């Protein structure tokens, strides 16, 4: 694999006095799927929110697709069209239909005409397997359907990287799989993905690498087989025993 898609170099971040990222260095290759896991409060969401600059870091450097994004004067809009993001709480625009949700950014950021944007949006809704819900408002969709619209919305800008911040944590168990399947398709298509999740089955099947975080540090990174079979750190083994036991 050539140049890495994302590089963190000695990154530190504080929320006031709270030191939430401590000396994080991590590199994600182009086309790689990396699952970030760890106990709550370990900094994993904060870490991926730094990639599209929803969070600013105070120290260290982050390079995304060859561009340092931690320097002043970065074009945030351009960065965010290249890095899509999916949130735990879906956050669809409630006053727009599913189709309009997906069309908005291509029209307003890229300046596409409505007809072009609609064509792209319908194709993406088909790709996330809900073409028939195009005219529905978010409130009339199930959680799993909303999250798939959110994925289509993020893909509409043709990003090179996708960030997933606990995409299935707010879902009923029977809807988790429909979202994970769409994510698995994306991974198979070669998308670079950074996924914060507790779905260890997904990590095992789809991830190329697992990064385990604790107290703001990346404590361990390893291919999933290795990580699940024999985590090196005591903290990771303890974490795994807790979440795999149920």
């Amino acid at each position: 694999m050539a140049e890495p898609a994302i590089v963190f170099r000695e990154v530190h971040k504080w929320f006031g006095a709270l030191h939430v990222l401590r000396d994080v260095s991590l590199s994600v290759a182009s086309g790689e799927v990396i699952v970030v896991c760890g106990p709550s409060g370990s900094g994993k969401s904060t870490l991926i929110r730094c990639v599209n600059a929803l969070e600013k870091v105070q120290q260290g450097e982050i390079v995304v697709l060859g561009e340092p994004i931690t320097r002043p004067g970065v074009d945030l809009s351009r960065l965010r069209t290249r890095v899509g993001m999916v949130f735990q709480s879906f956050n669809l625009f409630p006053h727009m239909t599913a189709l309009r949700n997906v069309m908005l950014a291509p029209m307003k950021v890229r300046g596409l005409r409505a007809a072009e944007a609609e064509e792209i949006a319908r194709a993406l809704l088909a790709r996330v397997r809900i073409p028939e819900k195009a005219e529905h408002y978010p409130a009339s969709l199930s959680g799993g359907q909303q999250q798939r619209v959110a994925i289509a919305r993020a893909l509409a800008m043709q990003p090179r990287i996708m960030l997933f911040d606990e995409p299935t944590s707010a879902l009923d168990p029977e809807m988790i799989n429909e979202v994970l399947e769409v994510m698995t398709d994306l991974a198979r298509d070669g998308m670079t993905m950074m996924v914060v999740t507790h779905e260890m089955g997904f990590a095992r099947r789809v991830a190329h690498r697992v990064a385990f975080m604790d107290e703001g540090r990346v404590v361990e990174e390893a291919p999933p087989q290795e990580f699940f079979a024999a985590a090196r750190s005591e903290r990771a083994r303890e974490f795994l025993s807790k979440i795999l036991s149920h």
Partner: protein
Amino acid sequence: MNDQFEWSVLWSGQSGQWLLSGLLTTLRLSALAWVLAAILGVAAGALRTAPVRPLRILATAYVEFFRNVPLLVWMFFWYFGVPPLLPRPAQDWLFAHGAEFWAAVCALGVYHGARMSEVIRSGIRAIPRTQLEAAVATGLTTLQAYRLVILPIALRLIVPPATSESLNLLKNSSVALTISVAELTFQTRQIETYTARAIEALTAGTLIYLGLCVSIATVMGWVERRVAIPGLIAPGR
């Protein structure tokens, strides 16, 4: 009983004409002031939640300054205080074109803009922060995210309190009689002066205000149902 009231004073002589012209002035004054209040209210309400501190301070200063001084004082301020500060040609133009009317538009619009901004701010604050993040994460700028996502949601949420505030504005337009704007209350008092029929004149004024307010509330109720966000608690009918 019958000779106690003499309702015909309301349509005999010039009364009818006065009432009609008062009604039209009230409507024109309220409509212009409402537009000004809506623009200032949306701008200040949005800026008070903006991620830029100096803008927040500016908007807060506007709101606290204008809503915490009585409307009557603002009427006098805009009528007696502001014109002398303007250049001579502007003053001449103003006094040739009803300075008191424009002073009343400014007083009402700026005062109610400050109050309206609080209503709009409360609507914006009802939206989770992650909604804004989701919008900018697609590449929209913060300004676009406000214009296309945050404000359209907030404005739909605040139709009921914004209606109350609009009705307040309409009723407060009567304060303009203190700087001799010939609006509805001014005209009912004129009828009273000419006919010595206080009850009849006040009744006419009251019924017209009541009719106006109920009509506006009805229209806004319809607007509320039309623009309601699907899935939120259904509006009462």
